[in-house]
């Protein structure tokens, strides 16, 4: 599968309060959350983001609160994937669990500029910068997490397992 879009660039330590502020957490409706996604970091983002667009950021993306509303808001805003130097651990789990593709690549995070056109080969973990004619590699995803992705998220994975064990 290939994901393709224009990039929005952010810095280091983008926290989940900035991704979706708590003042909007009185709902868990993805569409409502998407309207406010990243608004405190870049007020142009919610109205300007287009389906397929890619978020590129520095280290420790998604630090802070465990709110799953953060990756939900990003996904519902139409973002196809997030590329960062590193991810905070709860955000990392959450993204896989809900099926938001994320890629760790310090090189890509450094080299990609705002508004570049980027294409990501999900299975190969290869990131192609079409604007600059460059290619970067993402860190390999552990096999167990690939199974979660293949199942279509953690809930499907658990449902299949429980069905197999005769518990559903």
């Amino acid at each position, binding site marked *: 599968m290939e994901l393709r879009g224009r990039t929005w660039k952010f810095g280091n330590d983008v926290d989940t309060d900035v991704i979706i502020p708590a*003042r909007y957490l009185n709902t*868990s409706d993805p569409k409502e959350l998407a309207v406010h996604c990243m608004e405190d970091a870049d007020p142009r983002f919610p109205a300007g983001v287009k389906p397929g667009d890619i978020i590129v950021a520095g280290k420790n993306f998604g630090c802070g609160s465990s709110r799953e509303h953060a990756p939900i808001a990003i996904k519902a805003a139409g973002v196809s994937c997030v590329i960062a130097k590193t991810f905070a651990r709860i955000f990392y*789990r959450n993204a896989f669990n*809900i099926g938001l593709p994320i890629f760790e690549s310090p090189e890509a995070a450094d080299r990609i500029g705002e508004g570049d056109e980027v294409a990501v080969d999900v299975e190969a973990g290869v990131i192609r910068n079409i604007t600059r004619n460059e290619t970067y590699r993402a860190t390999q995803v552990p096999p167990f997490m690939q199974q979660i992705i293949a199942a279509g998220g953690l*809930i499907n994975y*658990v*449902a299949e397992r429980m069905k197999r064990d005769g518990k559903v």
Partner: protein
Amino acid sequence: MGMTITEKILAAHAGREKVEPGELINVRIDLALGNDITAPVAIREFEKIGVDRVFDRDRVVLVPDHFVPNKDIKSAQQAKIMREFARKHGITHYFEVGRMGVEHCLLPEQGLVGPGDLVIGADSHTCTYGGLGAFSTGVGSTDLAAAMALGETWLKVPESVKFIYHGEMPEWVTGKDLILYTIGKIGVDGALYMAMEFTGPAVERMPVDGRLTMANMAVEAGAKNGIVPPDEITRRYVEGRAKRPFTFFASDPDAGYAREYDFDVSKMEPAVAFPHLPENVKPVSEASGITIDQAVIGSCTNGRMDDLREAARVLRGRKVNSNVRLLVIPGTQEIYRQAMREGLFEIFLDAGAAISTPTCGPCLGGYMGILAEGERCIATTNRNFVGRMGHPGSEVYLSSPAVAAASAVLGRIAAPWEVK
């Protein structure tokens, strides 16, 4: 090579003799926790799995604390989803308003978590219970949903980092100051994916409340968990409280650590974290002079009895500055009652503070103390990100209860000894 306390607890819950950092393991969980923000999403996902009951109704804990007493219609709807789920599934430990508390103050107090436990919670500050010698870590709502169905979860065994705190803690230096100092040294991703093990003479002498504060903020350094080896102080705290048997684990002398840090606490001052990251830490003397509009004393970080006593010690016989709103939020109903019995409420009320029912409210900019544009707050909470307590143009400074109280009196960030 031996194992760390974190590795031993994980091994015990994986049914294994030994585990090593980097391994992916399936572990049995002793407790799964959710709140009024994260549980509604978890419940939606749980219902997709197709099971008709939770793995153990005694081991799922649901605490409405973030936006309750309900702050608006939408949050009332969220709280209702959780309440109805708790009734439908006969959840033993659902805590209604009037009996609830800030979750990470409540669970240790009620003896629902103890040494050697493995706890996951859909709240990042679930790492608090490491203060009792448990392995506990924050997860998202979907992980909670899966855990409620299976009674187990998958974890990557973290590498451990050892922190050794030497020396005698000076007056007014607390667990909060030690953890802020530590985050200031290693940064907000200084322990990313790792276990932070807090040891040394200063921690060995520290009461449980201070240890819970230290473990609470491990996530602010990116850690998976924070942990204090349990000892006699722990035993005195958990005996008579624990609702389940507990186990004391200890790191082997030859356990492996990714890094070790030695800190001398005897020269430390109370610490203040400047906006907009918890790693922007300076000694309080370098923060003096910054005027404030609000002070908040409470939260899962510093809403316990020792915290309120420390604040009261500063506020006794003094008045909150005319330019400042001081909010005091006891962490649980028990703490509320105990503070009242000890006469702390008289001190707070005489000073001109507002006392609130337990809630996470202002810490995350939910309600009950939201900041306007340009306003500045000193808070005993755990995060000072952009817009954390309200308007994106407001500022939060993090400190101990004594520093927050002194700042409330003087109208500017101040050390407790400046209050005359």
